[in-house]
């Protein structure tokens, strides 16, 4: 009886445990991984800024609210070291963090655009008409058929030996 229960539980676990993702060639995964990896790097920077800023604001608050770098503090919370002052500080910090992050992203996008422009120059292209392209394509196909016929003949010769 116990063995039955154990086997049943084992079967349920095996079915409902998270499955591995469907198989894909390694190239696609590597490409995705590098793409996301590259995207993530620039966002690492703002964190030390955050901590520094937190320290600054706190010291300003403790010293009594006559600091020049905090112009938008509501008057009710500037006098005392209260929890609402901390909330306001945190709110402004997150705003500042989002702003920095947005700037970084636009900067990264601009860099990518520049890189794209640089790699596209000089814009190389042939001004072939479709007529010429079809002619060349037909020549290539004729060559391929001749090559295939030749290879077939060689194979039949080899098989006949």
């Amino acid at each position, binding site marked *: 009886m116990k063995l039955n229960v154990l086997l*049943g539980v084992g079967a349920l676990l*095996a079915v409902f445990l998270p499955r591995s993702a469907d198989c894909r060639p390694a190239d696609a995964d590597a490409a995705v991984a590098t793409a996301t990896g590259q995207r993530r790097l620039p966002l690492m920077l703002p964190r030390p800024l955050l901590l520094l800023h937190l320290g600054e604001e706190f010291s300003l608050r403790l010293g009594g609210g006559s600091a020049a770098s905090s112009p938008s503090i509501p008057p009710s919370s500037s006098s005392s070291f209260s929890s609402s002052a901390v909330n306001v500080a945190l709110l402004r910090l997150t705003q500042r963090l989002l702003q920095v992050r947005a700037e970084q992203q636009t900067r990264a996008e601009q860099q990518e655009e520049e*890189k794209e422009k640089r790699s596209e120059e000089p814009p*190389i*292209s042939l001004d072939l008409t479709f007529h010429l392209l079809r002619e060349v394509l037909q020549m*290539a196909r004729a060559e391929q058929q001749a090559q295939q016929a030749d290879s077939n003949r060689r194979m039949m010769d*080899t098989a006949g030996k």
Partner: protein
Amino acid sequence: MSVALRAQLFLFLISLSSRMGLSRYIEDNEAADGLYSLLSLDQKRESDDFIFRRPLRCLDMLATDGYFTFVASRPQLACAAFIIAEPSEVISLELSDVNIDCSAGDFIKMFDGWVLKGEKFPSRQDHQLPLNQRYTDYCSSAAPGATSRSSQNVAMIFFRIHSPDSGFTLTVKKLHNPFPCNIMSQSPEGSFTMVMPHQRRNCSFSIIYPVEIRLTDLSLGQAISNELSPQRQVWTGCSGSGDYVELLGGNGVDTSMMFPIADLCFSLSGLAQMKIGCDNSVVRLVSSGNYINRVSFQYRLLEQRELPKTRENALDNFCSVE
């Protein structure tokens, strides 16, 4: 062992193997060798020596595997070789014996697709890589040889060589592609079936001839699960479910700059046909990734007398369609 216990054990083992059922990667074991498989190992080794070789020209089109060597007899400043394969193949290019002077302005660039008159095939919307990643520059890459693998059955190489007797060797190999997307047809007549299994991609089949296209089978929207609600999708129209087939015509290779001629978004089992009198005729399958989509069509070349008449007051760039 009792029968009940054996049954329990088998059930347990079967449920363990259910975790391995979701793999979709298809392995190709070179099953398409045909006559080749009849040869013994010795005979195969003999025939391997006959790999196709020929010189590469400044303007060239390659449709076979092999080694192609270019040697400049005089400064060649604008050369390109187009490479095309069968629809279900991709192209692997490799440079070797390269003898050029990058600092003097020589370059060799491999491109994943074709560029014609500034237009790129596949277009930016249809290709999965950004444009700068589709170019492989020999002079910029650190390794002594450069390789590139295309994502579809066409590829290109651009080169410029200033000094005589410089050159390189290009190795072309074809690899199998089980679900081809973005195909350039080699011939003006033929038939093809495009399948897009649960992938969010837009795929184009491009024919650089004026053709009459007949859609023989169109199956959009076999749902990912076994839900019994396919009737609803028929009425939402082409923009609803996000999966449809469009026919395009134009005078360039870039499908995003072509004119849509027809949209089809419900499955049909009869024939739908269209004469497209354009330099480039394209069948494009737009998939949202929710379904398995399949479209089958045939096409044949339109003779000069069969081309649709151009209308009066038509746009200059628009080609005639019937």
